């Protein structure tokens, strides 16, 4: 077991980077902190690749879930404990690679992008912290461990979104992201509590073993117990999924994601595109056997939440004008894809295609979405604006960005042979086999995706001619170009990975095959979307406005993100603050404290009322005296013998 400890170094190296930069960055490594952080991560990434190589190349079949290392961190009771450990299975290894790779890219990119920033060391410290947390999350061997890192990821995200802390909007966005996900995490936590109570363990291996074997008492009791019409297990899984949905920005917990774009763009690429937001998908995948074998109903919910999120996000993305927001909604939409892919999947063999597809899409999406964000970052870096209206015709000034961005757009639109095509095809196939309704939704969304991505692409790089504000520094430096190119290669070629060989539900390799007949329709839709975008946005015309006017109400509500933000605002501000918080505070000050003060005040009042007894007249005193004598005598002679 100790021989596997080196795996734990993968997260610990970024942690060391965080501690080093966090404590001494400001004083000692003012300018070199970027390099230091990157080096730490480079080592970590190398280790991750080595682990992956070691893991996948070892045998012909997929190695089962194994726990490489574990340490009891906190013993709750005889059965329940939080163990800190490393769990290795195909998806965790895959995630290790994705996270370290994308994070490395972002680190390198930031060397250029964040140069000269006042809190440069802090930035790298936070990035390291995030990477540490994310790596810890993916390799968790214990349900509670995942929750711990889940929270840490949340807080790193908060720190990075709020990196420009003197910008009120950034602070607000960071708060929003944290609070919304925290709310979801509440569900997660309760879900963990329920699940651990039924299963009697927090350890993934034992947990999955117990909750999937029909003979186990734990499973029986979890299924037979019911609360409000749902079984205990369903509650547990749904609540855990709620946590996942929050982090993965699924409808209706997605509202934080677009705002999170207030953070530095590389951060958006890392956290809000490639890694953290897919944690929810990863969580469901981690517990997939339980979902699929023991509780298909919960999985159904996962599927529909994913599908609805996918389509809503796509519609909204069509109307946004801030390029990062468009990308944010697109992320949400793509995660929706992954989510419903899991939802439509079943356990075992060919029926588990959705699972594989989902993981595959997660993998490819990480590449092209990171690329898109970094590209957008380059554009923003250049024009100093996020708004589409400030852009146009940039292809001449940013050639490399332009090309890589185009590759990424094609990948996301599902045009072969780019990466997105393969993964999306598998998803659609899985959906087609299991749930026709979701399939049609997915198809529509897929077309829409192509449309809004190319709307973005044309608006940035074509459309009106560029009008520049004096400076013509062109592309960022080498540091910014290198990640774009590497990710571009990834976005173009990742689809050819024989993914099914490595990742499947039950460990048996899955052959992926492309059926031309099936692929024709989605690809065609993608092309239609591209053409429509070209028609509308290649040249500056008034067609978009006309179209918007003709669809006025839909457009308006989509533009306003279907008013979900307003709804939340209403609930929090009006209901929570005004109807709960304010009355609680009032009640405390006036009623509870009032009662305490009342005892004091009434004592004082009584004291004031009886002071006349002490009249200062000695005869009255004597009368009281005699009265006392009479009362006592009567009392004790007659009443109280």
């Amino acid at each position, binding site marked *: 077991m100790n021989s596997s400890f080196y795996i734990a170094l993968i997260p610990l190296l970024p942690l060391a980077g965080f501690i080093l930069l966090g404590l001494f960055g400001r004083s000692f490594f003012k300018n070199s902190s970027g390099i230091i952080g990157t080096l730490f991560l480079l080592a970590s990434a190398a280790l991750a690749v080595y682990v992956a190589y070691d893991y996948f190349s070892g045998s012909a079949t997929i190695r089962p879930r194994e726990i490489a290392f574990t340490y009891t961190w906190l013993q709750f009771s005889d059965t329940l404990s939080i163990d800190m450990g490393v769990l290795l299975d195909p998806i965790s290894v895959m995630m290790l690679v994705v996270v370290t790779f994308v994070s490395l890219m972002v680190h390198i990119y930031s060397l250029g992008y964040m140069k000269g920033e006042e809190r440069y060391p802090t930035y790298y410290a936070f990035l390291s912290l995030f990477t540490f947390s994310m790596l810890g999350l993916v390799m968790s061997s214990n349900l509670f461990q995942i929750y711990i890192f889940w929270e840490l990821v949340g807080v790193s995200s908060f720190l990075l979104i709020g990196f420009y802390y003197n910008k009120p909007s950034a602070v607000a966005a960071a708060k929003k992201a944290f609070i919304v996900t925290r709310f979801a995490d509440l569900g997660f936590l309760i879900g963990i509590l329920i699940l651990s109570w039924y299963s009697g363990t927090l350890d993934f291996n034992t947990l999955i073993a117990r909750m999937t074997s029909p003979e186990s008492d734990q499973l029986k009791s979890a299924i037979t117990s019911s609360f409000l019409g749902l079984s205990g297990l369903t509650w547990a899984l749904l609540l855990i999924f709620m946590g996942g949905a929050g982090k993965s920005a699924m409808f209706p917990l997605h509202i934080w994601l677009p705002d999170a774009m207030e953070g530095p763009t590389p951060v958006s690429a890392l956290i809000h595109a490639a890694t953290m937001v897919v944690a929810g998908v990863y969580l469901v995948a981690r517990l997939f056997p339980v979902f699929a074998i023991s509780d298909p109903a919960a999985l159904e919910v996962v599927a529909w939440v994913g599908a609805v999120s996918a389509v809503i996000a796509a519609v909204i993305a069509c109307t946004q004008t801030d390029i990062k927001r468009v990308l944010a909604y697109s992320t949400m939409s793509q995660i929706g894809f992954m989510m419903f892919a899991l939802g439509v999947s079943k356990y075992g063999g060919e029926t588990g295609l959705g699972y594989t597809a989902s993981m595959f899409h997660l993998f490819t999406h990480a590449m092209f979405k990171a690329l898109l964000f970094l590209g957008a970052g380059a554009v923003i870096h250049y024009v100093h604006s996020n708004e589409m209206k400030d852009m146009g015709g940039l292809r001449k000034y940013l050639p490399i960005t332009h090309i890589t961005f185009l590759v990424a757009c094609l990948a996301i639109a599902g045009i072969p042979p780019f990466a997105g095509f393969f993964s999306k095809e598998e998803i659609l196939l899985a959906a087609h086999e299991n749930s026709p309704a979701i399939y049609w939704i997915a198809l529509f969304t897929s077309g829409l995706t192509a449309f809004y991505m190319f709307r973005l692409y044309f608006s940035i790089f074509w459309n009106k001619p560029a009008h520049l504000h004096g400076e013509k520094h062109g592309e960022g430096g080498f540091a910014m170009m290198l990640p774009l190119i590497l990710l571009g290669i990834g976005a173009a070629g990742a689809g050819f990975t024989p993914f099914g060989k490595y990742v499947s539900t039950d460990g048996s390799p899955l052959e992926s095959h492309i059926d031309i007949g099936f692929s024709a329709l989605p690809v065609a839709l993608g092309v239609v979307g591209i053409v429509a975008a070209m028609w509308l946005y290649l040249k500056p015309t008034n067609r978009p406005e006309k179209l918007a006017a003709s669809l006025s109400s839909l457009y308006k509500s989509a533009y306003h993100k279907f008013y979900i933000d307003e709804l939340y605002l209403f609930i929090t501000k009006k209901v929570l603050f005004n109807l709960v918080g304010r009355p609680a505070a009032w009640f405390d000050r006036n009623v509870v404290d009032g009662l305490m003060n009342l005892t004091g005040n009434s004592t004082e009042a009584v004291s004031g009322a009886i002071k006349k007894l002490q009249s200062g007249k000695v*005869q009255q005193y004597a*009368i009281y005296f*005699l*009265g006392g*004598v*009479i009362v006592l*005598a*009567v009392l004790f*002679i007659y009443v109280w013998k």
Partner: protein
Amino acid sequence: MKGATIIFYLLATLTLVCGVLSVTTRQIFRAAIYLLFSLIGIAGLYFWMDYQFIAAVQIVVYVGGIVVLIIFSIFLTQQAGEKLPKQRIDRKIFSALAVFCAFALTMLQLYQHTFYETADEPVPATVANIGNRMLSVKEGGYALPFEVVSILLLAALIGCIVIAMRDKTMNIEQGTLNKEVEKGK
């Protein structure tokens, strides 16, 4: 009815009536005189009970001492003929009520109680008997109380002197204070 009985009731009436008058009359001098007669009535009752010594003490100390003292102080503090201020009527009624209740209660208890009488041989209350006892330290002796009372009388004397003769003593003792007092005047 025997003569002794008649005398008893006469004495009782004298005592009570004079007592009542003493606390109700609005002329202070008369009040003192009524008090005097009431006390004499009590002395008479002592005589009636054959306790001559006590009766004598009563007359000497009360009639000869205390009442004289009181009358003297009346002269010191007030014109004898002046009428006393009226008490508030509610106070009067309330007092009367309270007092009557207490009285009724007391009498009720007294009458309901059967007193246990001893058949002891009475010890005559002669001066000799009383004197012996008074200075005896043996069983039934009252030497210690006697000493206590003597100290009390001494203390009372000192107290009276200090309080009642303040100007004089002040002049004797404290020169500084005296000047201030004179200035104050």
